[in-house]
C-alpha cells in the first residue's frame, strides 16, 4: 500500500466557466507539476473531456477518473465519479436525456467546446451546460449508483449551489459516498474529501486529498471512502 494524492474536481475549457487555458493537455501538465497521482475531470453536466484527458494522463503516469459535476433540479452541485469509460458513456446518455436544454449565448458566458488532442474543435455545445437537469438529487444519486459510481455532494460548505444552501441540510436517506468540503472540516456523518474545483490551471491541486491505496484506481478510491481492507483517507490539505 502506498499514499496517493488525488484532486477529484477539475474543470476543463468545456465548462463555460473553465479557463480557455484548461485544455486536457494543460490539465495533465499542471497535475504533474503539482505532484498529483489521480485526478478527475468533472465538467458541468458532461463527461465529454474525460476520455481525452485520461489518454494524455496515461502517457504521463497520471490516472484520470471519469466524472461530472452534475446540477440537480434543486440546483445542488454533485460530483459523480464513474468506474470506467463504459459507465461514463452510459451516464453521458442519461445526462443528455435529462438536460433542460436551456438556450445559450457563448458571447456572454464563454464557449463550451469539445476538443481533440491537437486542440481542434470537435463540437460546440449549444445549451447551457451548468443549467439544472430535470432530474432530482435523488434520481442523480440513484443513477450514479446504478452505474457503479460514487455520489459526492460538491463544496457542501459553500453558500451557493451546495446541498446545504439549496436544501438547508443533508437529507439522511440519500446514499452519500463522501462529501466535498472547501473550508474547515467539521465532525460529519460522511467521509470528507477536499478537491480544488479548479477552473484555471494554477488552481489545480490547491486542495487535494491523500489516500492510502494499493494502486491508483477508481475501485481503490471507492474502497478508501468506505474504509475497506486498509484503504483509507490519510489526510486532506488545509
Amino acid at each position, binding site marked *: 500500500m502506498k499514499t496517493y494524492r488525488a484532486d477529484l474536481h477539475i474543470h476543463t475549457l468545456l465548462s463555460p466557466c473553465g479557463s480557455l487555458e484548461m485544455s486536457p493537455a494543460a490539465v495533465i501538465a499542471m497535475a504533474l507539476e503539482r505532484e498529483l497521482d489521480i485526478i478527475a475531470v468533472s465538467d458541468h453536466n458532461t463527461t465529454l473531456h474525460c476520455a481525452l484527458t485520461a489518454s494524455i494522463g496515461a502517457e504521463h503516469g497520471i490516472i484520470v477518473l471519469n466524472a461530472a459535476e452534475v446540477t440537480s433540479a*434543486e440546483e445542488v452541485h454533485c460530483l459523480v465519479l464513474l468506474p470506467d469509460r463504459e459507465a461514463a458513456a452510459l451516464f453521458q446518455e442519461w445526462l443528455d436525456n435529462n438536460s433542460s436544454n436551456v438556450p445559450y449565448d457563448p458571447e456572454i458566458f464563454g464557449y463550451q467546446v469539445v476538443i481533440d488532442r491537437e486542440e481542434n474543435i470537435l463540437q460546440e455545445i449549444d445549451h447551457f451546460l451548468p443549467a439544472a437537469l430535470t432530474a432530482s*438529487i435523488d434520481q442523480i444519486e440513484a443513477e450514479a449508483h446504478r452505474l457503479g459510481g460514487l455520489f459526492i455532494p460538491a463544496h457542501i460548505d459553500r453558500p451557493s449551489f451546495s446541498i446545504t*444552501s*439549496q*436544501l*438547508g441540510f443533508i437529507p439522511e436517506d440519500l446514499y452519500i459516498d463522501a462529501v466535498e468540503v472547501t473550508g474547515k472540516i467539521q465532525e460529519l456523518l460522511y467521509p470528507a474529501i477536499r478537491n480544488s474545483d479548479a477552473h484555471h490551471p494554477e488552481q489545480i491541486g490547491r486542495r487535494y486529498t491523500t489516500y492510502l491505496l494499493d494502486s491508483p484506481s477508481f475501485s481503490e478510491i471507492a474502497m478508501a471512502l468506505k474504509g475497506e481492507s486498509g484503504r483509507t483517507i490519510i489526510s486532506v490539505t488545509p
Partner: protein
Amino acid sequence: MKVTDIVQKLDLQVFSGHEGLGREITGGYSSDLLSNVMGNADAGTVWITIQTHRNIIAIAALKELAAVIIPSDEKPGDDTVSQSDVEGIPVLGTCMPAFELNGKLYDLLSGS
C-alpha cells in the same frame, strides 16, 4: 386570515397537509434557498418556493410555517406529500408564476 382563506381567494390547489388548513397566517416569505428560509422566515408565515424536495417540509416544520405554496404549476414529489401529511403543514399549488402569486398574496395579507 387562515390557510383555508387564501386557498379560496387565490384558487390554490391543496396537495397535502389538509389537517393544517386552519392554521393562522401572520405573513409571507419568498425564497428558493432552504438555508435562507431556515435563517430568516418567521413562524406563521406562508412560504412561496419553487423547490419541491421533501426538505421543504422539514424546514417548514422547524420554522413553524403556516403553509408552503409552489408556483408555476410545479408538483411536489410523493415523499414531500407524505411528509406534509405527517406534519400537518399544507402544501399548496398554483399555475400562477411566483411573481404574480407574490403580488396577489401580498395584497391579500396587507388588506389592500
